[in-house]
């Protein structure tokens, strides 16, 4: 099915099942521990041996020698895989660094060996016996120091630079200006389930039971790495304990498990341990961002520029931190630019809302700074600068739908924004300085072609198969809701099978495109099935109504099972998105309101209240969507207040690489979070009329916290995370 013109009224609009806060259909299995995650797939590989990855102890250089004899002789050890005996390997195009070091070392904790043994403990103990001699190189680890050497490099998702009008001239003549530089640190996705895989070979065919967001990419990248045909690879990933971008790619767990299984001639399971994850896998790269905004005294922006510097390994990618600034506010004269420095700190890559999550931390604080200079309420300033078309491309490219202003006004009302004292440092509650902050939320809403297979059997039971993944987001449930809506059956009659490379290729889960795209693929397949069932039953498909397990038309009705016939009927189709994204700017929007308390004695910041209003097209399942948004808001608090991979610039690695030292918010950090979705149907986004919601909530949440800290204290902080030592510097003495 092609989607290249706006959606008309369609059976999804009935909203008998879709749009309802249905409980997750995979919920009971997950909370009872009966949903097997990758490392627990003993049903498919009962005799798996255990692999343990040895990471490099240096960040860049060469391996001189690897001593594996002791490890090989250790009790229970079946094999030790290193680059010397792994066979020929290549680097997948999607990977920046290789999954197995040797002879070059590209970053700290890159896999240098896999020890395979009968038991987990044997493998881990023997791994300590692998000794590696290195010839280290001097690496580069300091973004600020490398900023001057950074180069222009386009991202896979857009150009590095854009410019419209004459920014320098407009900025120079602007009545009120802000010119501020912000920094955000490296961050770790810190999903609950570590990377894990069981690999098994059957002749030249490889099966990977793994934890991965993008099944087709996993097949492709494994094929490229191991130099085998993609047809020979089977990937299964039905349950995933979170990913946040860390599992967009097959990583060392999968590749090393495959190599280990080949060497041991047995299935092998490998999980990364928590302390390995930050340095071995991908992380969100640190940024330095400069934002300049020039406005008239009336608050209208005439000039806006956002530049970002980030680092990555050679051949890496930029962190697209200025992307939202291309679309969020009006202003005739604008520019954005991204520069990439070479840093030897593991692979920089996607983490929830890549680019935009950290971009908002700069832009939305700059807006707060501008509002203060102008003496205009920060909510009003954002409303004033709303724009209903792509400000770079002009009115020819309108937004498909955009309710930023409504989000701000409704949000302000719900939160009680009017009570905010615009003068900072005025409100006190005991030892706590209290402040409120606002920020807009913007996240591009990309779509990806997505296919599905839908079958109905003689009993009228429906099975949906697609390689879409459920990374804790609720994909199982919204796909079941979509099929139930379209086929006119209760949700209990739908079976959803996800995460298997034998199923049609879906959008996968990433970039907040998964829900909208994958349900649209299911929509396409269901519409095709409806057509074929109607035809088989002798109905005019345009008249046929699918309801209560029946097909009705022209006064006749027939059950789905009967229509399908004794052998059932199965069809496959794919949604193909055409150029609607070109014609229309597609993004979801929101507004965050936050109240913080800053301890006047210690500088500790604690969030007291959070409230967000969001417009993201049709909300397919308000319960699942709310979970996504509160999770993302929580991550926004983490980004603002505590998350930071600390770089040791001497050794070149992230020092605080476990969850005791890399802080993410705990329950006690997160107060009541209010989430409100505005009614919105986006007919240009997909036949589902939905948009992305999974990453929207992180965008702006942290900036609202930062702005609230300013309102509470009068201390403007621009270097994240805003830890108490930084706040303390600006607090008045307490004597």
């Amino acid at each position: 099915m092609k989607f290249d013109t706006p959606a008309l009224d369609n059976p999804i609009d009935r909203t008998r099942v879709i749009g309802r806060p249905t409980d997750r259909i995979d919920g009971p299995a997950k909370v009872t521990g009966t949903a097997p995650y990758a490392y627990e797939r003993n049903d498919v590989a009962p005799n798996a041996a255990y692999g343990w990855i040895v990471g490099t102890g240096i960040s860049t250089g060469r391996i001189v020698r690897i001593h594996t004899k002791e490890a090989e002789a250790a009790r229970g050890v079946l094999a030790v895989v290193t680059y010397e005996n792994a066979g020929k390997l290549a680097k997948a195009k999607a990977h920046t660094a290789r999954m197995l070091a040797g002879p070059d070392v590209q970053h700290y904790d890159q896999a240098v060996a896999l020890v395979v043994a009968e038991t987990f403990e044997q493998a881990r103990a023997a791994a300590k016996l692998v000794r590696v001699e290195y010839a280290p190189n001097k690496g580069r680890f300091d973004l600020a120091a490398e900023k001057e050497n950074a180069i222009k490099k386009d991202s896979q998702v857009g150009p590095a630079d854009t410019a419209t009008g004459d920014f320098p001239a407009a900025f120079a003549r602007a009545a009120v200006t802000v010119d501020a530089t912000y920094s955000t640190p490296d961050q770790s996705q810190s999903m609950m389930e570590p990377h894990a895989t069981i690999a098994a070979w059957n002749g030249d065919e490889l099966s990977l039971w793994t934890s991965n967001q993008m099944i087709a990419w996993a097949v492709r990248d494994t094929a490229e790495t191991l130099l085998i045909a993609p047809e020979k690879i089977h990937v299964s990933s039905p349950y995933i304990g979170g990913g946040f971008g860390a599992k967009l790619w097959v990583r060392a767990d999968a590749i090393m498990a495959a190599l280990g299984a080949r060497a041991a001639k047995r299935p092998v399971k490998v999980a990364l341990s928590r302390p390995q994850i930050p340095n071995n896998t991908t992380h969100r790269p640190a940024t330095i961002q400069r934002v300049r905004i020039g406005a008239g005294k009336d608050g209208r922006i005439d000039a806006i520029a956002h530049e970002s510097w980030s680092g990555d390994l050679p051949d890496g990618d930029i962190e697209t931190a200025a992307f939202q600034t291309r679309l969020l506010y009006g202003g005739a004269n604008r520019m954005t630019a991204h520069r990439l420095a070479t840093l030897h700190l593991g692979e920089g890559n996607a983490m929830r809302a890549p680019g935009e999550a950290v971009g908002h931390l700069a832009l939305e604080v700059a807006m707060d700074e501008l509002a203060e200079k102008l003496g205009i309420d920060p909510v009003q300033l954002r409303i004033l600068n709303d724009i209903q078309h792509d400000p770079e491309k002009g009115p020819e490219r309108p937004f498909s739908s955009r309710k930023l202003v409504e989000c701000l006004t409704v949000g302000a009302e719900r939160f009680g924004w009017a009570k905010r004292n615009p003068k900072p440092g005025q409100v006190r509650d005991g030892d706590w300085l209290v402040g409120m902050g606002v920020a807009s939320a913007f996240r591009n809403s990309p779509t990806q072609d997505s296919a599905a297979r839908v079958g109905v059997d003689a009993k009228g039971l429906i099975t949906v198969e697609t390689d879409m993944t459920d990374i804790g987001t609720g994909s199982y449930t919204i796909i079941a809701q979509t099929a139930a809506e379209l086929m006119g059956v209760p949700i209990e009659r739908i079976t959803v099978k996800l995460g298997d490379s034998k199923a049609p290729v879906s959008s996968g889960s990433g970039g907040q495109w998964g829900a909208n795209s994958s349900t649209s693929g299911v929509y396409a397949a269901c519409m095709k099935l409806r057509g074929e069932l109607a035809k088989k039953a002798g109905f005019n498909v345009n008249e046929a109504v699918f309801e209560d397990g029946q097909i009705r038309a022209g006064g006749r009705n027939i059950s789905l099972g009967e229509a399908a016939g004794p052998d059932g009927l199965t069809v496959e189709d794919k949604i193909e998105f055409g150029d609607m994204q070109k014609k229309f700017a597609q993004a979801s929007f929101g507004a965050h309101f936050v109240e913080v308390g800053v301890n006047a004695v210690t500088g500790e910041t604690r969030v007291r209240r959070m409230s967000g209003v969001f417009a993201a097209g049709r909300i397919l399942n308000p319960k699942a969507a709310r979970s996504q948004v509160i999770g993302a808001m929580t991550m926004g608090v983490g980004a603002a207040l505590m998350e930071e991979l600390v770089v040791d610039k001497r050794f070149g690695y992230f020092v605080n690489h476990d969850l005791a030292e890399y802080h993410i918010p705990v329950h006690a950090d997160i107060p009541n979070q209010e989430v409100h979705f505005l009614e919105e149907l986006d007919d240009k986004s997909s036949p589902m009329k939905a948009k992305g919601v999974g990453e929207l909530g992180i965008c702006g949440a942290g900036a609202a916290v930062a702005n609230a800290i300013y309102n509470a204290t009068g201390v403007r902080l621009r270097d994240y995370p805003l830890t108490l030592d930084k706040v303390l510097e600006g607090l008045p003495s307490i004597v």
Partner: protein
Amino acid sequence: MKAFTYERANTPAAAVKALAARPDTKFIAGGTNLLDLMKLQIETPEHLVDINRLGLDKIEPTPEGGLRIGALVRNTDLAADSRIRRDYAVLSRALLSGASAQLRNKATTAGNLLQRTRCPYFYDTTKPCNKRDPGSGCAAIGGFTRNLAIMGTSEACIATHPSDMAVAMRVLDAVIETVAPDGTTRAIPIAEFHRLPGNTPHIETTLGPNEMITAVTLPPPLGGLHIYRKVRDRSSYAFAVVSVAAVMQKNGRNRFAFGGLAHKPWRVEEAEKKETAAAVAEAVLAGAHTTPQNAFKTLLITRVLTSIFAQAAA
């Protein structure tokens, strides 16, 4: 983790005998620190003696009017004990500010005193660390030091002792009771229990190699206002950036002990005679050895003390 053997002891005497019987033997109590370190092969005992069933899990009054806390009393139980809450509130508050409920359910009184540093380089076996690997150097010096010590440091080590409980016990002048394999017992004042790093940061306490902690006794209640102020980077489940245990008295005989500053709970009795927060802070922090990353701790201590004085005066 290296393979190890395991036995369970049934009496304190049997436990210390078992400890002395084989080299590379360690006690396991709650295991919340030891097992983590064993997984990373920072600790590599060949043999573990489980001391969870020695009957050392009671809190009893002492003839002097204090309390004797068994070495195996869980942090949760100690914090919840009504006598502790009434008479030693600073201890209860310190315990409850530590770790998480699950960890406190397992963590024991002795294990908490003996928990090892959270210096991130200590945890990374690819890095030099005099504490983990004597003589190898100290990776922390010149590195990430924000959370490390500013008092009593040495050129060999700048790690902190991470316990909250021990800070409160220090302010209360607790005494650590031990037994050795030959049956001798000792009572070690907590001031003398933890050591500064000096040139031997791997030797952290004055406990003998084959000694076992049997109990911790608290002297009779001090009265006064009990405060435990833990400053941390998130609301829960985080080690102290700094912490202050205070017992404030109307007569001015205040007591203060500090966490997050040193290789041991930090207390300067002389400083307690000073009458203002600033004067106390100055005396406590005399000789501080800070880095640009952790210099804020001095300011923080001063401010927290100021606020504690204000609270006591109110």
